[in-house]
């Protein structure tokens, strides 16, 4: 039975779906035991929500590739959800950035996978098969590890096993070209967009979210201009099918499945607030004055989490610090 895009595929009712029963099961129906929401996006791509950051899953004859692994505490549920989608070997993990709500499950999910090696490393090198590969920008490895002799913030088994430093990393898997595209100094200093070219889906990590203002991690190399450039890059790649709708679908770092126009509205908001802060700085206003001016007020009811991550105050502060940073 072929499911249409976006029909909700909850973890538990998957067997019912395969048995040809009702293809539409609401996530609000309370039947998902793992509290995870599993949705088919389109083509070979699924989205798992509810385990921290969104997880993108690509499945096919060759195996399973996942983008991000969610929180460590939810890895058991995540692995179970992936296994409901496909029982093929989990071969690749791609990390969009280093934050623990996106990489926390690396260790467990990697161990649930396998590396299919070439003939020249078979034989007695049995450990070469253990665990899936983890691909990320070099800066993700830097953030997750530590120099020799110092304590690492994450266990070595969670670290990226294959990194790239500029441009993009290319993977061809499940009859699909997958581009891992570096976006410098955006949400962090190690962000990657992951573009599934055949399925026509972009997984954005936290460059784009629908649940809050952008969290620009200035302390770890993020910047407002990099964030805007990255959003515009997503818009450049995405092609709508009809009247600014459909076509390329976007899996955000947090929140719902989107298409290009959703990113456009978000890009507009981020750019407009950047313009306001920039004008205020030119007028000589201080950070506190800018925060008090209410420059996000038209978006607060939609995006302000009132927390450090995704809150209006921290967003304004990040924009201010980005724009006043000495070059």
């Amino acid at each position, binding site marked *: 039975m072929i499911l249409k895009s976006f029909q909700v595929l909850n973890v538990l009712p998957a067997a019912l779906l395969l048995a040809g029963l009702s293809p539409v099961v609401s996530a609000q129906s309370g039947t998902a035991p793992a509290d995870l929401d599993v949705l088919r996006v389109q083509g070979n791509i699924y989205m798992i929500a509810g385990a921290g950051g969104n997880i993108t899953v690509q499945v096919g004859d060759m195996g399973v590739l996942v983008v991000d692994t969610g929180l460590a505490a939810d890895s058991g549920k995540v692995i179970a959800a992936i296994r409901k989608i496909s029982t093929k070997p989990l071969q690749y993990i791609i990390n969009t950035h280093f934050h623990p709500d996106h990489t926390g499950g690396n260790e467990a999910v990697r161990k649930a996978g396998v590396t299919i090696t070439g003939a020249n490393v078979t034989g007695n090198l049995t450990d070469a098969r253990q665990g899936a590969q983890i691909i990320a920008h070099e800066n993700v490895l830097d953030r997750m590890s530590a120099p020799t002799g110092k304590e690492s913030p994450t266990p070595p088994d969670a670290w990226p096993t294959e990194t790239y430093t500029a441009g993009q990393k290319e993977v061809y898997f499940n009859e699909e070209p997958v581009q891992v595209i570096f976006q410098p100094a955006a949400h962090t200093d190690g962000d990657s967009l992951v573009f599934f070219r055949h399925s026509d889906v972009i997984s954005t990590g936290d460059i784009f979210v629908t649940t809050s203002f952008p969290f620009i991690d200035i302390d770890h190399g993020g910047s407002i201009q990099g964030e805007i450039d990255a959003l515009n890059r997503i818009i450049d790649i995405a092609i709508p099918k009809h009247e600014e709708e459909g076509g390329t679908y976007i899996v955000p770092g947090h929140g719902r499945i989107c298409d290009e126009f959703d990113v456009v509205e978000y*890009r*507009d908001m981020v*750019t407009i607030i950047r313009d*306001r802060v920039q004008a205020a700085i030119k007028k000589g206003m201080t950070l506190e004055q800018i925060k008090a001016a209410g420059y996000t007020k*038209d*978006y607060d009811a939609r995006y302000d989490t009132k927390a450090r991550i995704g809150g209006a105050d921290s967003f304004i502060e990040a924009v201010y610090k980005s724009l006043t940073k000495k070059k």
Partner: protein
Amino acid sequence: MLNVRRLPLVIGLLALPACAQFAGSFTSVGALDLSGNWTPVIMEDQPERIPGPELVNYSGLPITEGARLWAESWDASRLTLPEHQCQVHVAPYIYRGPLNLRIWVEKDPQSQQVVAIKQYISTYEQTRTIWMDGRPHPSPNAVHTWMGFSTGKWEGNVLTVYTTHIKQGWVRRDGLPESDRATLVEHFIRHDNHLTHVSIVTDPVYLTEPLIKTQDFLLNLQEGQNWLYPCEYVEEVSGRPKGEVPNYLPGQNPFLHEYADKYHIPLEAALGGAQTMYPEYQLKLQKEMAAAKK
């Protein structure tokens, strides 16, 4: 704007809580057939619907302060950006414009039960599916569309439709936003060859109370014209820096007073808000304007 002649009917429909309106199973008993081609009757709110609303005319709309600020920073030139040129009026707004509307029914071939009522709206070539088979609305994480996800049921001879998963759009096309958290309840009421469409928009982000509007249609026995609306973006402003988003900085919208000055009404009235929807606001304005003259 609500037509006061239909107020009792609308109030009666509104009196039903949303959950009651959608509880219970599908029934087609007593349902009218809405099938056919329908042409809008645009006397009601004509200045807003055909020439288009004037800039900074937010009167009669229950908008939040945030919505007002959003609209004040909106520069109409934003519509010249390639990615905005083909943006569609969302379901709660699309019936306001000039359009041809075709309605038909899709039935299960085995049981002849109605599965869905479909609508084709010529403006922007939008197809709406109103599911009548009792299916639930999808997960909040599912994609949002211009027309949203709709389920319907017959309440007597009134087709009541509930829509979620609508993209961000606008409440009025002079920049007043409607968020992607808005939901829509509609009533389609047929009287012979006349169709009344009542829409009730609830938006927790940009409206302080539900916005109720009506639109009317006449059955058109001819096939009609203008069913197509192909949209392809072009470069409208050459040399614009990449990533630029036209907007007015706070306090710098040059059109802020234009509408109010043209019609000699206080700016406060032009800037809208729930109080400007109600008849008693006219009395308040008259008093304030008389006091100002003294």
